[in-house]
């Protein structure tokens, strides 16, 4: 078995249809079209049961959670595999970090089980929506510290935001089954983010340059995960930024502010793209 595994080779059965971030963002149909959505959704884009498209949007998001959990499972498993146990230098990782990655693989396997059952509960079939492989791409770095930053802090941080949103959706939709499951997964994700923050600090304790590089990478991934403003504190973003749970997971106020700023910028950039596209179409 190879030491590192490319995203293109991720094994799936025939039901799955994969795409990547570049393809997704070049598809103008996925844009946050504020003029159109404002008419149909009112003032807010938040995923709430009173949106006219709530059912489809929630099913799509749940499918996204499921494929995201599959990739998170694969990423944790690969990190447990790809690096020898050592002192953290020269491509090694501490033995205890490998154990934590194996534990995370188990947690993510349960999350796949939960989200498959929830998808079924919500009336979605596997493969009904595309699978964006951006999450596993963040888990592909040859530097384990970058994986911690990209996966445990950026990706799992996004999971905190998404699960908080879905838990609220379950509450508002009077669906205790959904709310119950999301709350359990949320607890795990807070643990994973905290685990990543702790390990990032420990492994880079005597290497400030490596730590800075990892945090830079995290910002790149966080910007990707802004999904063109789909996640953010603005009511125009379907998914909110879960400040309280991020704080529990070890994010500082400054770090959450930075992410909120990136989300805001991504939303504005996307709006500009949509505006230009509409102008071009009008011409």
């Amino acid at each position: 078995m190879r030491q590192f595994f490319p995203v293109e080779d991720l094994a799936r059965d025939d039901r799955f249809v994969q795409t990547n971030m570049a393809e997704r963002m070049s598809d103008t149909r996925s844009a946050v079209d504020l003029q159109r959505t404002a008419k149909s959704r009112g003032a807010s884009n938040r995923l709430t049961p009173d949106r006219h498209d709530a059912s489809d949007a929630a099913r799509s998001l749940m499918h996204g959670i499921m494929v995201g959990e599959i990739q998170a499972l694969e990423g944790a498993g690969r990190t447990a595999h790809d690096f020898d146990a050592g002192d953290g230098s020269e491509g090694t990782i501490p033995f205890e970090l490998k154990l934590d990655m194996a534990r995370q693989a188990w947690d993510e396997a349960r999350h796949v089980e939960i989200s498959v059952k929830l998808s079924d509960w919500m009336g979605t079939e596997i493969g009904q929506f595309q699978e964006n492989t951006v999450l596993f791409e963040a888990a592909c770095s040859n530097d384990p510290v970058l994986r911690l930053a990209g996966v445990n802090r950026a990706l799992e941080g996004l999971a905190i935001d998404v699960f908080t949103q879905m838990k609220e959706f379950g509450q508002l939709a009077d669906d205790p089954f959904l709310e119950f499951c999301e709350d359990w997964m949320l607890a795990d994700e807070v643990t994973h983010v905290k685990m990543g923050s702790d390990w990032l600090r420990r492994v880079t304790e005597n290497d400030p340059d490596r730590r800075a590089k990892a945090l830079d990478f995290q910002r790149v991934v966080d910007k990707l995960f802004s999904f063109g403003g789909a996640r953010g504190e603005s009511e125009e973003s379907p998914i909110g930024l879960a400040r309280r749970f991020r704080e529990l997971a070890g994010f500082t106020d400054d770090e959450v502010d930075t992410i909120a700023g990136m989300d805001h910028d991504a939303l504005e950039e996307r709006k500009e793209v949509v505006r230009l596209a509409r102008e071009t179409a009008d011409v």
Partner: protein
Amino acid sequence: MGADTTTDTATDTSRSHVRAPFAPWDRRDLPGSFDVAETARRVGNYKWTEMKLFEALGGWVATVPELDIKMRLGTHCYRHAWHAELWHKRLPELREMKPERLTAPANDAMERFVAAMTEPEDSGLTIEKLVGVYRVLIPRFIAAYTYHMNNTSEITDAPTIRSLKFALQDEFDDWRDGELMLQSLIKTPDDVRRATEHQAALEDIMVEAGGITGPGSIGPVQ
């Protein structure tokens, strides 16, 4: 009632608390087959092999297309990591202050076995991946752990026995999961041939290795 009677009663009560240090139902005994050094050597072999197993299971998750198997491998990956942790923590208690020193394969053949077991990567080789783990390696774990549990000192080496019992429970559960997955995948004569040929190739190396802890894994070498 007189004063003497009171004294007798007190004495009787006191005698009733005098009990044998080992209750009649406690048949544990001191003798065991392994001294401290031999126990540490075996535990080091266990840790190395459990590590290789959880690494392989974790790495394979991305390579198998069957969703149910992907999830099972993720679950089993953690169980074997936990066993490795149990053995890692046991080593310093066995006078091995550098656990890494004894974290080693039993011999070269065992190292070759793991290399051969982890070699399949293609998404069409799920049968081969599962055969290596669930029909060759895990049965060897069950054998070595059972032999150790039944032959070590029940008193001096009780901490190892406790860990062996936890690990064995997982090994049995995982073996059953693996066998069910394999039986659901093996549907044609060609599948049977693939499974048996791969198993035979791996068994050859494992026999050469003599088991998880080398010759003597399940009893004195004749």
